[in-house]
């Protein structure tokens, strides 16, 4: 690595950092992404692909951008508009009332009766109790989209350094002046930290405390099935979709909190603790797919802040640092989060949304034992009980 430097260093080649790199590069900024492994190889490429995050201040921008992303990037994201959520548990029949409390005005959606669900979801069965259809939101392919950002950013001149570990941050006065990496020092005018579960450790290098905890979560995928008219279909405690290849890919259920994840290599991410429970719920949701064979599962490691909300802001000290953790909901919002980061880096303020409630300062009064308090702790080994199932 030369000591030539760059205007902006982005630490983290996940979907948030890559989107930011693309937004900055297409604004003419000289940007370098530093990634410890391969782009999009952690949670960014290992999620359900949902693009429907109405709780977020970035929601409107998320909805505005997704339908344009294939064209803007020049590479496929597999974005598909629309989403159906339906339930098969009678206790959840009126789930749409909870949604109605939360969905912002101006977005079109319908409540569906069981027959309507079955007409739109050929793999659904007699057990449907109710459903909703969003005429917004949707799904995309996480790995393909992550790579699309990386390639599109490169097309605009961004440099992406894979297999490069950050070892330190150089500061002078109230500014960061460069990033020390396993491949040498990279001088910079501004720094973006978008390092997923490692964001807290990166902030600690600056003497700042960004509270977060990492956890492992799982998904399963079946062999391809005939395409359903709408592929964004989930419910029954699951998130996921039918891929454009026809596979059913679903996740949900218990996560495993982890101690600090490694900083310089891939985190451990075995899968298997909820595989059978996921299979049960997919078979319940889509009974006509119960014969479909599960051919893979995988796990990803995701970070959450104590309230589960992002921290996305331009710091005041060091003043040329922008930090972004999306707190376990990063993929779908990435077109918008990258735009917000671009604005924060260049203009100091987001041009299209108020982000003031997502400032790190809200955790200033956080209790020191918050992980114990929230029970966000790795499981302790318990003796398994052998209980023969009598058939």
């Amino acid at each position, binding site marked *: 690595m030369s000591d030539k430097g760059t205007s902006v260093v982005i630490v983290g080649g996940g979907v948030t950092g890559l989107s930011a790199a693309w937004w900055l590069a297409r604004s003419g900024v000289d940007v370098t992404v530093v990634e410890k492994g391969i782009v999009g190889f952690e949670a960014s490429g290992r999620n359900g692909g949902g693009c429907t995050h109405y709780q977020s201040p970035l929601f409107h921008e998320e909805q505005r951008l997704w339908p344009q992303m294939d064209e803007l990037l*020049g590479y*496929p994201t597999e974005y598909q508009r629309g989403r159906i959520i339906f339930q098969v548990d009678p206790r959840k029949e009126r789930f749409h009332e909870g949604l109605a409390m939360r969905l912002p005005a101006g977005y079109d959606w319908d409540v569906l009766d069981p027959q309507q669900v079955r007409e739109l979801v050929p793999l659904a069965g007699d057990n449907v109790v109710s459903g909703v259809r969003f005429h917004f939101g949707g799904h995309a392919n996480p790995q393909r989209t992550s790579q699309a950002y990386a390639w599109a950013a490169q097309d605009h001149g961004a440099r992406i350094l894979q297999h490069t570990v950050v070892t330190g941050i150089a500061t002078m006065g109230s500014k960061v002046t460069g990033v020390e990496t396993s491949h040498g020092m990279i001088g910079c005018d501004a720094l973006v930290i978008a390092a997923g579960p490692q964001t807290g450790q990166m902030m600690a290098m600056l003497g700042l405390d960004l509270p977060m905890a990492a956890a492992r979560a799982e998904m399963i995928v079946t062999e391809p099935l005939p395409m359903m008219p709408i592929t964004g279909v989930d419910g029954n405690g699951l998130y996921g979709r039918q891929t454009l290849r026809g596979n059913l890919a679903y996740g949900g*259920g218990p996560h495993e*909190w982890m101690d600090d994840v490694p900083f310089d290599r891939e985190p451990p991410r075995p*899968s298997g603790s909820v595989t059978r429970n996921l299979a049960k719920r997919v078979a319940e949701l889509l009974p006509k797919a119960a014969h479909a*064979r599960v051919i893979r599962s995988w796990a990803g490691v995701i970070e959450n802040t*104590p309230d*589960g909300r992002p921290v996305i802001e331009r710091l005041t000290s060091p003043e040329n640092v922008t930090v972004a953790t999306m707190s376990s909901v990063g993929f779908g919002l990435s077109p918008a989060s990258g735009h917000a980061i671009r604005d924060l880096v260049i203009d100091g303020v987001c041009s299209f949304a108020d982000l003031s409630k997502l400032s790190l300062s809200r955790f200033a009064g956080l209790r020191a034992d918050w992980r114990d308090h929230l029970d966000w702790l790795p499981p302790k080994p318990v003796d398994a009980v052998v*209980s023969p199932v009598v058939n």
Partner: protein
Amino acid sequence: MTEPTLPPPDRYSIAGKSITIEEHVEILVVGAGDAGCAAAIEAAKAGASVMLVDENPVSAGLVGMDVPFYFGGRATNAVQTPERLVERVLESNPALAEAFEVGVDVRLSTSVWGAWVKVPGLNGLTCGIAGLASEEKSWLVGFDRLVLATGARDLNFTFAGSDQPGVMGAQGFHTLLTRYDAFAGRRLVVVGSGELAMDMAALALDRGLDVVALVEVRDDAQGPAEKVAVLVERGVEIVTGHVPLRAKGNAEGVTGLLVASRDDAGRQREIACDTVVMAVGTVPVIELLDVLGGKRELAPERGGHVPVVSEDGATTLPRVFVAGDCAGLGGDAAVSGMRAGRAALRTLGKAPEVAEISEDVAQDNRPGAQDGLGYQTDWASAMLATGGPDVLACICEDVTRGDLLGVKPPRYLDWRSNTIARRDLTTLAEDGPVNQDQIKRLTRACMGPCQARRCREQVALIMAIGAGVSPETVPLAGYRTPVRPLPLSVLADWDEGADMDAGWNVWFGIATQWIGYDDIGTTREAEQLRAGMPY
């Protein structure tokens, strides 16, 4: 400073959720070949409780999917009734009878689709757990020690027309012929000329089948000279310096194999046959070890990616041992099984006081054993050069060699753009070493229902050729549970504990996460927190 609004304590994590384990054994042995039977018998004789699991005979559905071997659509109707094949499997393996006699709990037609021990990321486990499945259901078995004796599977190279019935792997052929008595072919061409190919040819001849030719990419037959002489004596032609170019066929499958000169694709000849047996090599089955998190290494002289293992079969995981071909090809499988069985016993404090097992050091006659992945690369290069880019590299996912070399998005996206046309394996390699897991996700090669059994090694070799790097530098694509394709209804835990349902959430279940941004800090926030999660 005010305290931030925090969610209630987490009741949706895995901590405290019960795991229903239906059975528990001291020693679980996976695979009832020579190594697995020897390990199980050794352990049972010493008084340990032992379960020996083997997936054979597999269901007709799996035979059709080329799982676990490349059966290539050349099975007779006998595979439609696997329950009747059980007898055949027992007959062909006398060690199973001995295992029954010494009290081993033998489970046939049962697969092991996953196994887990306490590793980082799975902190809640105390005993080891294996996932088992029959045709009807899946369940979990706890174990104190695990011996993996999962053998080897087929190494495959595709060519034009090789996706039709009649093209199969040596392991698939051997299983159909000897263990299932269900092989439907008559007239064979064997691809390869090492000891594996020679043995398959000799076996076929012994069973009254015709073996027309062996096809070898290199200039000389690779097997031992005496075996070559015997085959030639029996009328088998050895066609050297050639590779399969195209299989011709009709509705019933292969009717002939067109082979081409390695150096000149125009020089071709056709060999009439109904079956092409791919016998260039086999691959150690390390999928469960990889899922468990055991360390592995690339050792081409032992067959490729193999476990890091000590003399007695101990892996880097304290409870897990390996034996036979899955520990690395070559050697005496039964001896390695006995050693692994004893080593597992020792760690349980049950070691029998017996003399160390002596072993004749078997000479390794596998072609290419001495030149890394060179022999496999010779095949891949010659078949790419002669057959060209339009041949499927991944049959399940319809990915051609050209798609791989060009890092093309899958065909069903019908995506064309100038930007993507500029991208290929070479440009990808400029950003870092090529990685098979990355290529899988971009092109979908190796992502199909056969779980990459027919293409995994070939895809890695083509990637190396395309990127101009040594094949040894391409990292192994990870294995994932379930390592057998299982129907949702079979894999499902229909008896899960009530605590799982009560503690299930679609995501993390962090109530504060889903409050609309505008409502944060207003009375509506408290209202929504009281109402709970939206669904």
